[in-house]
């Protein structure tokens, strides 16, 4: 079978010592930064992005992926032990996980979360391996018209499923698309929005934009909030779950994995939606729904498996279609672009060892996650209680040197300050920066395909509904928009995303 030969190619690639090493470094750094208070996976990836740029493409992408699940898992550790979820998708874990920790079952909660995540990660990786190729085959047949509609659908769907006001999210996509215009127009060679600055001829730097929007603005936002400095972590007595806890977590892990694998493929808030959905499902099927909120094992096992599965399968749209579905995947796509690889269906066929190596490395990375997290949990917890007053100068310095080290360009460092300030102001007005980075990454692709379509069709806009594939995608986009705009759904959506 094809999948087996592909996966064995991937495994042989992932097991090259340098790739194992960078996978390890990625998972380690991701966990390290992810457990620090106030830093979610997006901020972690943005801050660490500069470090991967000097590596060869396969090592760089493997390391970025490692950073992602390291950060994701680091957030769960702090959610369970000190009730400080590093990111939105582990807020659910904190509900019952922290209660378990209060009852002295923090160790087992961590082991269950790690075990569930590991299982979910393995299954989700298999899902990627099975789904990615046929999807990419389909996408390869797409004309410029279909691709334009697909990108539009991707953008609309990802903002619809994300939190916050739809209108504001759409505005942020448009802003991101506009920022993506800066630089030289590929068709005519004329400079756009460069204001005569030679440094802008190649466009805005995605690293500087990401570091500013997700790193610096995060610091600004955190400084505003009142900080209850350093929480005294609970002592952990014993790690292994008892037989009863094991038995209670089997079902939730299986259900969470299934749910997460499906929801992760959808654009938007895959991992977040998955963990909320899994919690709701577990509460519904449980014989003791009253235990939820009071340290129910299922309330940790289900959501943790679900969000890890979703984190993994959210790679599918980016890897097979070239369309990142959330800010984290936009950063992955940005890292690929910097390495000279244009994300899209062709990657898998032109560069199979890179593609399958990345997928197989997810197995390696998930295993490392378990090995790193369980024995070293004491260290992570100590890190999580580092006071913010020491932490944020370090973050800021790391951002500045990191960006400067890429190309010794002072302008890029100055722009992280400006993007950071802009991001902070946007957050203050409840405009989320995630759709912006999506628009920024997809902008050039969208414009190129749109212009090619119009050139080929002689300026006929109806071509978008004449091609059957494009028509289907346009209808889907319309349905998504209408559904989200419906008052009943809008209310439900607000409830779902309420913390």
């Amino acid at each position, binding site marked *: 079978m094809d999948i087996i030969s592909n996966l064995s190619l991937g495994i042989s690639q992932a097991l090259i010592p340098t790739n194992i090493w960078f996978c390890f470094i990625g998972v380690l750094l991701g966990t390290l930064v992810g457990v620090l208070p106030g830093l979610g996976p997006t901020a972690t990836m943005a801050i660490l992005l500069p470090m991967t740029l000097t590596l060869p493409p396969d090592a760089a992408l493997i390391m970025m992926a490692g950073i992602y699940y390291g950060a994701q898992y680091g957030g769960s550790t702090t959610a369970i032990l000190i009730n400080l979820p590093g990111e939105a998708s582990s807020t659910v874990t904190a509900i019952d996980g922290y209660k378990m920790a209060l009852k002295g079952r923090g160790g087992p909660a961590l082991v269950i979360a790690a075990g569930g995540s590991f299982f979910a990660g393995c299954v989700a990786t298999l899902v990627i391996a099975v789904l990615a190729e046929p999807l990419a085959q389909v996408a390869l047949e797409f004309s410029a018209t279909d691709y334009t509609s697909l990108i539009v659908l991707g953008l609309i769907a990802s903002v619809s499923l994300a939190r916050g006001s739809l209108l504001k999210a759409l505005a942020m996509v448009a802003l991101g698309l506009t920022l993506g215009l800066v630089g030289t127009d590929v068709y005519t060679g004329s400079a756009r929005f460069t204001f005569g600055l030679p440094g802008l001829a190649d466009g805005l730097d995605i690293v500087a934009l990401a570091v500013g929007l997700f790193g610096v603005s995060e610091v600004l936002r955190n400084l505003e909030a009142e900080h209850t400095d350093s929480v005294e972590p609970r002592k952990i007595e014993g790690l292994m779950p008892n037989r009863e806890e094991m038995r209670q977590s089997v079902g939730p892990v299986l259900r969470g994995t299934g749910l997460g694998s499906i929801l992760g493929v959808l654009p938007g808030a895959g991992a977040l939606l998955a963990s909320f959905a899994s919690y709701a499902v577990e509460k519904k099927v449980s014989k003791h729904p009253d235990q939820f909120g009071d340290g129910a094992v299922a309330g940790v096992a289900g959501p943790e498996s679900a969000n890890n599965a979703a984190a993994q399968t959210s790679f599918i749209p980016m890897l097979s279609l070239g369309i990142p579905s959330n800010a984290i995947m936009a950063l992955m796509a940005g890292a690929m672009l910097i390495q000279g690889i244009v994300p899209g269906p062709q990657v898998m066929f032109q560069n199979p060892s890179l593609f399958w190596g990345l997928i197989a490395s997810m197995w390696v990375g998930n295993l490392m996650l378990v090995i790193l997290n369980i024995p070293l949990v004491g260290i992570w917890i100590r890190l999580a209680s580092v006071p913010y007053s020491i932490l*944020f100068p370090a973050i800021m*310095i790391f951002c500045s040197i990191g960006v400067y080290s890429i190309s010794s360009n002072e302008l890029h460092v100055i722009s992280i*300050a400006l993007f950071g300030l802009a991001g902070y102001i*946007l957050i203050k007005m409840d405009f989320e920066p995630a759709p912006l980075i999506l628009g920024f990454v997809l902008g050039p692709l969208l414009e190129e395909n*749109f212009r090619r379509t119009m050139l080929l069709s002689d300026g006929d806009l109806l071509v978008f509904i004449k091609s059957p594939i494009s028509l289907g995608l346009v209808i889907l986009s319309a349905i998504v928009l209408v559904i989200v705009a419906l008052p009943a759904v809008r209310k439900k959506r607000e409830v779902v995303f309420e913390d």
Partner: protein
Amino acid sequence: MSLVSKDTIGGFFTLLLGLSVLIFSASTLPVGSLTEMGPGFVPVLLGSLLFIFGTLIVILGVRTGSSAITPSPLRSTLLITASPIAFALLVRPIGLAMAVFAASLLTSIASPNAKLGMSLLISASLTILSIALFSYALGVPTPLVGSLIRWW
């Protein structure tokens, strides 16, 4: 209901930005037509979209009302923003070591309950740590001492 809220201000800036993009690109770039798009076509389109979205956000914000903008701590915001700028301006003339020290000092005094002694200590340790990490472990070639100082 107040006219100054997250939605009205945010929407207003969005529509203003859209308008500027629209006017700037329409007046400086050839727009062309759907059949033969010039470099200005998509910018004009996006400018209009931003303008429309901004207007809708303002209208909805006025009609349904939205929460007021919480004030920002001006001092820490300015100091944090100044830090990368200071780093960028200083790193070539005085070198990595002192630029890091200056930039971390700016951030560490940003916190409202910062004490100078503690800030100096944090900045000094961060400087040593970054030199160890970036210059030695990662081999970033930025000179530790800047051109201005060596020239003396």
